[in-house]
C-alpha cells in the first residue's frame, strides 16, 4: 500500500482518529493546563511552573511517591521470587500440577476493585478470627494503620499477580531443551547446580520481562488501593495514581493534578524506555 493510496488511510482512520481523540489531544491539553490555573472548565492565566513547584511541597504527593516506591520495591522482589517458585513447582511432573496452574492464575482474572473488597473482609474479619484462634495479636486490627495497610496492599498484589508472572516464567522454562538438563544430570550435576548453572541463565530474558512488567504495574496501581484502604487512615496508604485522581476530583485542584500527572508520566515512561534500552542491549549481546 502506498502512502498516497486512499486505502492506506482508510484502513488507518478508525485507530488514528480514536488515538488522537483519546490520547494525544488530551495529553497535549493536559500539559498546557498544567501551566495554568485551570479549574476543570476554564483558566484565567498562565502561571508558569507554579504548579510544578507546588507539587514538590505537596506533602500528600511526596508521601504517595515514597509509599509507592516502597510498595514497588517489595512487590517486584516478592512477585518475581514467588512467580518463579510457582513456575518451577508446576513444571515438575506430579499429579495435580496442571490443576495448580489453574488455581494460581485464577485471582488474575478478577479485577483489582473486587479483589480489594475480598481482601478487606479477610484482613478485617478473617485475620482477627485467626488471631483469636491462634493467640497472635499481630493479626488484629489490620488496615487501621500505615504498616498493615502497606502489607495488605502487598499481599493483595502478590496474590493477584504471582500467577501472571508464573505464566511468563513457564513459557521460558518450557523453551529449555530437555536434553541439556538430562546431560547435566548424567554428568552428575545436583538439582541446585542444574538450577543455577542451566535453568537460571536460560530464563534470564524472562526475568527482564517480568521485572519491568511488575515495575510499571506497581506504579500504576489504583483499583486495589481504592477498594482495600481508600488511601486511609489519613491518606497514609495513598499511592501516586490515587493522589492524582483525588487531587482532581476531591480537591478540585485540576491544574495541580495535571502537573502531578505529567511527573507521573515521566516516571512511567522512563521505566518503559529503560526496558526497551535493556532489551536492545540484550539482543546485541546474544
Amino acid at each position: 500500500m502506498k502512502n498516497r493510496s486512499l486505502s492506506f488511510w482508510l484502513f488507518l482512520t478508525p485507530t488514528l482518529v480514536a488515538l488522537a481523540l483519546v490520547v494525544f489531544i488530551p495529553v497535549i491539553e493536559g500539559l498546557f493546563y498544567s501551566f495554568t490555573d485551570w479549574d476543570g472548565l476554564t483558566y484565567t492565566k498562565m502561571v508558569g511552573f507554579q504548579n510544578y513547584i507546588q507539587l514538590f511541597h505537596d506533602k500528600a504527593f511526596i508521601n504517595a511517591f515514597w509509599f509507592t516506591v516502597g510498595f514497588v520495591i517489595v512487590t517486584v522482589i516478592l512477585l518475581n521470587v514467588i512467580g518463579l517458585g510457582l513456575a518451577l513447582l508446576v513444571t515438575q511432573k506430579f499429579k495435580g500440577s496442571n490443576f495448580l496452574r489453574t488455581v494460581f492464575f485464577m485471582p488474575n482474572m478478577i479485577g483489582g476493585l473486587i479483589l480489594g473488597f475480598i481482601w478487606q473482609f479477610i484482613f478485617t474479619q478473617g485475620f482477627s478470627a485467626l488471631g483469636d484462634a491462634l493467640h497472635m495479636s499481630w493479626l488484629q486490627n489490620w488496615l487501621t494503620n500505615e504498616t498493615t495497610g502497606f502489607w495488605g496492599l502487598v499481599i493483595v498484589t502478590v496474590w493477584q499477580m504471582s500467577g501472571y508472572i508464573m505464566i511468563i516464567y513457564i513459557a521460558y522454562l518450557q523453551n529449555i531443551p530437555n536434553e541439556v538438563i538430562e546431560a547435566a544430570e548424567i554428568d552428575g550435576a545436583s538439582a541446585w547446580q542444574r538450577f543455577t548453572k542451566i535453568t537460571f541463565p536460560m530464563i534470564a530474558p524472562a526475568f527482564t520481562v517480568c521485572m519491568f512488567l511488575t515495575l510499571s504495574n506497581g506504579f500504576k496501581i489504583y483499583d486495589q488501593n481504592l477498594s482495600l484502604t481508600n488511601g486511609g487512615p489519613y491518606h497514609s496508604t495513598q499511592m501516586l495514581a490515587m493522589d492524582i485522581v483525588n487531587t482532581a476530583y476531591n480537591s478540585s485542584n485540576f491544574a495541580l493534578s495535571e502537573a502531578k500527572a505529567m511527573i507521573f508520566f515521566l516516571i512511567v515512561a522512563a521505566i518503559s524506555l529503560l526496558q526497551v534500552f535493556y532489551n536492545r542491549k540484550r539482543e546485541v549481546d546474544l
Partner: protein
Amino acid sequence: MSKNSRKALGIFGFIIGILWLFPFYLIVTNSFKTPKGIFASVLSLPVNSTTDNYVNSFKALDFMASLTHSLIITVASVIVIILGSSMGAYALQRNKSKLSGGLLMLFISAMLIPFQSVMIPLTANFGGVHFLNMWGLVVMYLGFDCSLSIFLYQGTLSSIPLAMDEAAEMEGASRWQIFYKVIFPMLSPMTVTVAILNIIAIWNDYLLPSLVLPQTQYTIPLQMFNFFGQYTKQWHLALAGITISILPVILFYLIAQKWIIKGVTDGAVK
C-alpha cells in the same frame, strides 16, 4: 526424580494450592451465613446456611442490568478494537515507507502515557459533545487499547507473505476484499489473543467507566463499588454480592482457560 520426592512435591504443591484458594473459601462460606453467623465464627462452615443474602444482594446490585451493561460494553469494544487494530496493522505492515514506521512509533509511544495524564481533558472533551456514555466509552477503549493490539497484529502480519496479497490482487480482489477474505482469517490465532487480553482488561476496568458512564449504564465493578459503599460492614450481603460478581469471570476462565493462558503469555512476551 524419584517416586518419593515426586510425592513430597505433590503434597507441598497441594498445601500451597489450598493456601491460594483460602480467600475464595472464606468469601463463599461466609456469604451463606447470617450476620450473627459471621460474627460467631468466620472460619467455620455455615451452620444455619441461608440464601437470603443472594436474593437481597442480587436485587440491590441490580445484577441483570449491570451484567448486561458489562457485556454490551465489553463485546462492542472488543469487536471495534479487533477490526480497527487488524486493519491499521495491515496498512502499516504492508507499507514500508518512513511515514508508516513513524505512525507505528506514534501508536507505540501512546502506550507510555498513563491514564491519569489524559483523564481530565478527555472526560471534559467527551462531555462537551454529550458523549459521556457507553458509546463514548467504546471509542475511548479503541483509543487506549489499539496500540498494544496493533503491535501484536503487526508481528503476526510480518509472517504472512506478500505473495498472498498479490495472488488475490491478480484475481481482481479489491484491497478491502484482500484484507477481509484472505488476510483477516489468517490472523485468527492473534485475534483470539487480542480478544482475551482486551476482554479481561475492559470487563474489570473501574476508573475510566466511573468517570464516563451515567448511573443508568453502570457496569458490574461500578455497581459493586456503589453497593459496597451502601452496605459497609454488612458483610453477609457484601460477600454474596462479591460471589455473584466474580462468578461470570471464573466461569469464563474455566471454559476458555487454554486460550486465556496463551493470550496472556503472547501479550506479555511479544
